[in-house]
């Protein structure tokens, strides 16, 4: 068994060396851990719960039946398309590296930065959600008043804690993620079982779940429904984590590909079950949509205030795990991009701690960037307190658009490279879709374009403006410096075998 593992590790190392990279990170994750990191970031208890009120407000109860399933259908196609690429090009840069070698180094550079913007949004969005939930709980426990400022402080402390765990090592984080996956499933089972057996009132008939035409917003239903899709679409983000941790996964060409795909598929199933029973427990949808937290409101009405508090704590812990995993993913992406010198002060972020085998400096950069984004939003709202959007909607919209555009670029480039005869059947990894690949890629791209537009229409236009502003900054950076100086992952191919072995020896000797 041990011999088989060592053989596999050698093969994985050789596969990575083919791309010019040394095995610097600790390769210790199994298939379940790879699945668990993406499943924890998707976190049905984070996205679907914290934006439950958003979905209900705009799309009514039908959002949970139709909205969730419709989004899941297309996300399954996107995940399958990404799994194929992860299997063919198994490096931690993932989206960025795929775009760079399927298109060009500049495609790669833009993909990396767009992915980075989305990742900042997702880390900030998740840990901000955690703080929004945890701060009132802690305020009542310790007798202080929860305000936007205390939420921001708690957000900073949470980021610090996540930074420390990630710094210490992938083994600890992987164990916590494994636990997190079972924890998510366990909470859904407890929640659904309680609603079935202990609800204070009868469940709504099943057709309530698919009832369309009722919105509690001031928008026409069709538009409102599309805005409400943010709930599901934000939930289904971050599954690229399985690809970003690919250099830490044993037999990654198969396991990381399955990790991406199964994390989405199982999140769809468990998320649907949870949303269905919570929605069928609604007694008064209008009141729920107006509540501060619609999800907790529905649970409290159905199972009592005490049970509502328990669920609140359970959900809050799930968000904590989700934030932890998202920082792991983001830091690996930064590390991979920095080793190809795509960032300012790249050599710092590409440095691996010889003690912990983690990209320690990249982890702390992630913490700073995520805090800065939430702080920016806090300042904007302090200057203009009458603003109608919420911080969470801003952060989630930024992350959805950033991540999905970054998911879409390599898919487009793969289709282009195939049509030019550059990317051929022999280049596919073990996990591929054969003849189904092209139509699945095309449908994925259509959905990405559609959803990216939907996520920045009012009331989320601020996210659109922020993304446009960030794109201009990228354009300036590119034209001013990187256009001439960024060599891309192709430059790593120039590393000699001796150089790669020398880099790897540093970690064996430590």
């Amino acid at each position, binding site marked *: 068994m041990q011999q088989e593992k060592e053989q596999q590790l050698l093969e994985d190392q050789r596969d990575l060396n083919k791309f010019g990279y040394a095995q610097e990170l600790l390769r210790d994750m199994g298939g379940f851990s790879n699945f668990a990191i993406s499943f924890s970031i998707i976190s049905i208890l984070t996205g679907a719960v914290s934006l439950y009120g958003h979905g209900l407000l705009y799309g009514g109860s039908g959002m949970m*039946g139709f909205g969730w399933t419709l989004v899941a259908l297309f996300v399954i196609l996107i995940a399958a398309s990404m799994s194929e690429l992860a299997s063919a090009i198994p490096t931690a840069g993932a989206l960025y590296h795929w775009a760079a070698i399927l298109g060009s180094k500049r495609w790669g550079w833009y993909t990396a930065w767009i992915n980075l913007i989305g990742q900042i949004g997702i880390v900030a969005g998740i840990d901000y959600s955690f703080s929004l939930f945890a701060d009132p709980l802690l305020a009542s426990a310790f007798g202080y008043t929860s305000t936007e400022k205390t939420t921001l402080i708690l957000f900073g402390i949470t980021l610090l804690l996540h930074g420390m765990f990630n710094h210490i090592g992938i083994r600890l984080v992987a164990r916590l993620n494994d636990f997190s996956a079972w924890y998510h499933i366990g909470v859904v089972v407890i929640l659904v079982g309680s609603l079935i057996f202990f609800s204070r009132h009868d469940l709504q008939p099943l057709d309530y779940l698919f009832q369309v035409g009722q919105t509690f917003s001031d928008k026409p239903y069709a538009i409102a429904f599309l805005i409400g899709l943010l709930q599901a679409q934000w939930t289904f983000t971050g599954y690229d984590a399985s690809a970003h941790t690919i250099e830490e996964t044993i037999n990654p060409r198969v396991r990381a590909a*399955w990790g991406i795909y199964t994390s989405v598929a199982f999140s769809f199933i468990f998320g649907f079950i949870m949303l269905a029973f919570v929605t069928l427990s609604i007694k008064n949808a209008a009141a729920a949509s107006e509540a501060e937290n619609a999800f907790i409101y529905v649970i409290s009405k159905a199972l009592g205030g005490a049970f509502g508090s328990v669920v609140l704590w359970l959900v809050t812990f799930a968000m904590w795990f989700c934030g932890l995993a998202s920082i792991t993913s983001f830091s690996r992406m930064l590390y991979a991009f920095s080793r190809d010198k795509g960032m300012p002060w790249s050599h710092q972020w590409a440095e691996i701690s010889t003690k912990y085998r983690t990209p320690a400096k990249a982890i702390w950069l992630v913490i700073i960037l995520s805090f800065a984004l939430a702080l920016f939003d806090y300042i904007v709202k302090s200057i203009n307190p009458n603003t109608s959007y919420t911080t969470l909607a801003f952060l989630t919209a930024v992350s959805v658009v950033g991540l999905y555009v970054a998911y879409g670029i390599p898919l487009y480039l793969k289709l282009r490279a195939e049509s030019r005869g550059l990317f051929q059947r022999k280049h596919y990894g073990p996990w591929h879709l054969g003849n189904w690949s092209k139509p699945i890629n095309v449908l994925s791209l259509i959905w990405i374009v559609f959803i990216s537009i939907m996520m920045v229409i009012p009331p989320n236009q601020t996210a659109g403006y922020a993304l446009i502003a960030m794109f201009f900054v990228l354009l300036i950076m590119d034209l001013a410096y990187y256009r001439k100086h960024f060599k891309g992952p192709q430059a790593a191919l120039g590393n000699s075998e001796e150089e790669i072995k020398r880099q790897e020896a540093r970690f064996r000797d430590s």
Partner: protein
Amino acid sequence: MLALGIILLLFTIGVAIAIGYRANESVRQFDESAHESFIGSQAEREG
């Protein structure tokens, strides 16, 4: 709408299973000797 919703749900589950089945087949039939790592186009590598 209930019927439509259930059809959509079953269709999505069907698509997920079909893709999973297709991918599993490809993993089982994978021939390492016929595989070649994709490292980008020659022009891009030289550029």
